[in-house]
């Protein structure tokens, strides 16, 4: 077993009463990595987390931690610790005793318990609150106690089950910053379960997107965002216009990845794909017309596909003249002013509705309802999905 | 893990089997036995005890029990509704205090409760002596040891069982519903008739069942307040067991009683489902 991973999950599956909740899941977390497990509720991410913690045992597959398959080892014998969704702080124990609990269970000598619990409370900036009871703390402080209680055991991997769910919006943003900084400082690997794509994008080094018990895609936040593998990922991570269509024509010539404009979806896709080469394709998109795009996958002419187009990749203009390859005319249906951004809902001649997002600037005109506009985007900015 | 489960669950389950299911089972068994010469039980299988019940004397007791229970229930509703509604409209603190005040007599021993009335209403008790001295009454009010006193005892004892469920369902009524009804031109009476009363039905039904079901089992209230002159089912059962020592008949009476109460409960559940 390699020393470079905190945990290696191999082909695990789990079902309850005949319903498969986790299916052939396979991934690993590198040492010191912040790994997010992202998916909607009911996708199996919590079950997966509980199997790694040792509260559930997989029906098949293995979980390797520190060179040992722990798939059937109970929670109290695993070198991983958990921050529970609502923290599950022991209400009858003080903050200090909560933090010291794990050490006491392992019969660590008293002076060392004192030193380590004090240290870890210092790390989470709760040094003076040791004698308090959990009920006397604010939500943010409770979360820090939960972190301290887990981290004091120096786990190989820290599991966090939607730790922000119990906090209100404003506090959540502060705690995100703090959590990221803390992880950086102590260097422990984090497995962070969330259904909030923004949280995952902001915090994680890598994200695994789960749907219906399977991991659909694993990658760095930017990769997941720029080149989602499926329509589900495109829709779940960020907002996307998903357009149905058919491959009309495939260019035989390969395009070197290096020649693609940097920062485009196609460039990100080719960076992720093993084959660095891309191919130009033309699609017949329902309600839009003929569209040019790039793909690294071997689509054949006639194949049904979905085109994913991020709202912020679409340029909105009143002039037809443009160097961008794709262009379609539309009527503004609604303009939503959001301070830094403006969101438009626009309707094509075919009746199809698209979302467009532009940056607000006082010197640029805001389009009004009923305005005729042209939508334009580079071929490299759309993603072709099976 | 399953061994721990067995170790934990076996003692209470055994206890309930021996000291709960067995005694109740014995009532059924004994009801079909015959009475021994000096009391006691002659084991046999007969329905004599049940047949004996169809004597006008005993049927009359059952009818009287049901009538007294029904009348007490109605009186509890009439007495309990205004105060429940008033409680439901108090502030949070006021509601807590009132619930406590209603609970206190509930937690008072039944004998203490009854004695309090016997003492108050006795021919030389504080009520009569005060009324006589102040000239309010010419002759002492002789309520004690009449059927009115029995009814009073029942209503007094059962009132918390009516007020608490009633208050609980009234308290849940969204106060803006009443304002909405007012806004739509309802008069006070119409608000009560069309909004409050229908919405308080669960509490009304629950309270009525509780009151109705517990009265036939009580033999102390008729005994003390009525001076043993007005026997209900509870008294009949008690006499058969402790005085006449006809246990089979007493058991049969108990089972008949349970059936009557069970029928009442069933009616209540039917109501709940349709509500």
């Amino acid at each position, binding site marked *: 077993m390699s020393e470079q991973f905190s945990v290696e999950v191999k082909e695990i599956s789990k079902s309850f009463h005949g319903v498969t909740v986790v299916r052939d899941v396979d991934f690993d977390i590198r040492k010191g990595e912040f790994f997010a497990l992202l998916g909607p509720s009911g996708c199996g991410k919590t079950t997966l987390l509980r199997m790694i*913690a040792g*509260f559930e045992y997989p029906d098949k597959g293995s979980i390797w931690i520190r060179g040992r398959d722990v798939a059937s080892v109970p929670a109290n014998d695993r070198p991983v610790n958990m921050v529970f969704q609502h923290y599950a702080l022991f209400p009858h124990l003080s903050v200090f005793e909560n933090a010291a609990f794990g050490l006491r269970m392992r019969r660590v000598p008293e002076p060392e318990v004192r030193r380590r619990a004090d240290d870890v409370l210092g790390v989470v900036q709760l040094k003076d609150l040791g004698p308090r009871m959990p009920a006397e703390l604010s939500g943010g402080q409770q979360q820090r106690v939960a972190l301290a209680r887990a981290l004091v055991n120096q786990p190989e991997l820290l599991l966090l089950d939607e730790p922000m769910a119990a906090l209100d919006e404003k506090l959540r943003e502060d705690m995100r910053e703090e959590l990221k900084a803390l992880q950086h400082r102590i260097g422990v690997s984090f497995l962070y379960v969330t259904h909030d794509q923004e949280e995952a994008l902001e915090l994680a080094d890598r994200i695994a997107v789960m749907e219906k018990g399977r991991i659909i895609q694993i990658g760095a936040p930017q990769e997941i965002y720029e080149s989602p593998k499926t329509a589900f990922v495109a829709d779940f991570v960020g907002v996307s216009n998903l357009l149905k269509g058919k491959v009309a024509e495939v260019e035989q010539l390969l395009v070197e990845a290096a020649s693609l404009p940097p920062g485009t979806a196609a460039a990100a896709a080719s960076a992720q794909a093993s084959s660095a080469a891309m191919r130009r394709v033309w699609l017949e998109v329902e309600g839009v017309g003929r569209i040019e795009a790039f793909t690294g996958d071997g689509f054949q002419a006639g194949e049904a596909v979905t085109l994913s187009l991020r709202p912020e990749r679409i340029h909105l203009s009143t002039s037809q003249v443009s160097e961008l390859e794709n262009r379609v005319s539309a009527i503004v249906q609604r303009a939503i002013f959001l301070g830094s951004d403006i969101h438009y809902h626009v309707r094509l001649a075919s009746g199809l509705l698209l979302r467009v997002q532009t940056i607000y600037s006082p010197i640029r005109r805001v389009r009004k309802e009923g305005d005729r506009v042209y939508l334009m985007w580079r071929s490299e900015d759309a993603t072709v999905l099976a | 893990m399953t061994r721990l489960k067995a170790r934990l669950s076996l003692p*209470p389950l055994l206890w309930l089997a021996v*000291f709960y299911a067995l005694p109740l089972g014995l009532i059924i068994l004994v009801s079909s036995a015959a009475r021994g010469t000096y009391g006691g039980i002659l084991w046999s299988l007969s329905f004599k005890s049940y047949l004996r019940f169809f004597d006008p004397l005993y049927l009359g007791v059952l009818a009287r029990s049901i009538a007294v229970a029904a009348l007490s229930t109605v009186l509890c509703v009439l007495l309990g509704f205004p105060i429940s509604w008033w409680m439901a409209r108090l502030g949070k603190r006021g509601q807590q205090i009132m619930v406590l005040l209603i609970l206190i007599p509930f937690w008072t021993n039944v*004998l203490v409760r009854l004695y309090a009335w016997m003492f108050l209403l006795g021919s030389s008790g*504080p009520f009569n002596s005060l009324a006589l001295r102040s000239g309010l009454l010419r002759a002492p009010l002789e309520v004690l040891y009449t059927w009115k006193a029995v009814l009073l005892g029942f209503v007094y004892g059962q009132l918390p069982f009516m007020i608490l469920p009633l208050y609980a369902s009234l308290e849940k009524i969204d106060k803006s519903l009443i304002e909405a009804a007012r806004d739509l031109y309802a008069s006070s009476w119409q608000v009560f008739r069309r909004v409050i009363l229908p919405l308080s039905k669960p509490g009304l039904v629950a309270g009525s069942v509780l009151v109705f079901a517990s009265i036939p089992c009580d*033999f102390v209230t008729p005994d003390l307040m009525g001076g043993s002159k007005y026997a209900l089912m509870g008294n009949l*059962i008690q006499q058969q067991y402790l005085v006449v020592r006809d246990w089979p008949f007493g058991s049969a009476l108990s089972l008949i009683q*349970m059936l009557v109460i069970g029928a009442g409960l069933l009616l209540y559940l039917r109501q709940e489902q349709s509500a």
Partner: protein
Amino acid sequence: MKRGKPTGALALASLATLAFIYLPLLSLIVFSFNASKFNARWTGLSLRWYVQMLGNSDMRQATLNSVIVGAASSVFSTALAAMGAVALERFPWRRKPMWEAFFFLPVVIPELMMAVGFLLLFNVFPAEMGLAKLILGHTTLNLPIVWLIIRARLKKLDPRLEEAAMDLGATRAMAFYKITLPLLAPAVLGGALMAFAISLDDFFISFFVSDFQSVTLPVYIYSLLRFNLSPEVNALSTALFVASMLLVALAFLLQGKEAHV
């Protein structure tokens, strides 16, 4: 949350009802401190009826019996109820509602039926047991109430607390001992007090099962009520009333405390 016009009639009716509820109890208590031997006339404050009550050996014996039966049945029923509640809540059961109904049913069955059942039980299987018969009866009477109290607390306890303890290295037994048990303690104590109060209060089972040697306080009061009404009964009733209130208040206080956790 006062709203609309204060309906004076409603408040008046409610206060009248309250007076109806409290007038008898208050007059009973007040006149227990009356110096006069005659019920109705107030002649001055005195504790003579309390003194006379304490000097009454029958009454002392009945009190002792009640306390013994209350304490013993409280301990037994609490132990059994705690076992039953933990077993049902913390382990998987097929047909759990059926088992719960089994525990709960004694509350629904009228007390008179249970009293009758015990009378038959102790006559069909006769044994010289004296107070023990009462203890057995009261334990059954208390069991479902204590079970409900402890179960309510267990249901409110986050099962993740035990998981968190195991995540931090505790064994299952250790997690129960260190986390669940301390958090359950107020409910267990509150349940025990409630059981004591119910036992002290019980008349029906005691009346059917007790004999001359095992008269409890309510049974003793009943015999007094049937034969002689003296101010001493006021004193005794007041004492029983106060004892019940104290027990119940303490039990509620303990449960109120757990609500804050």
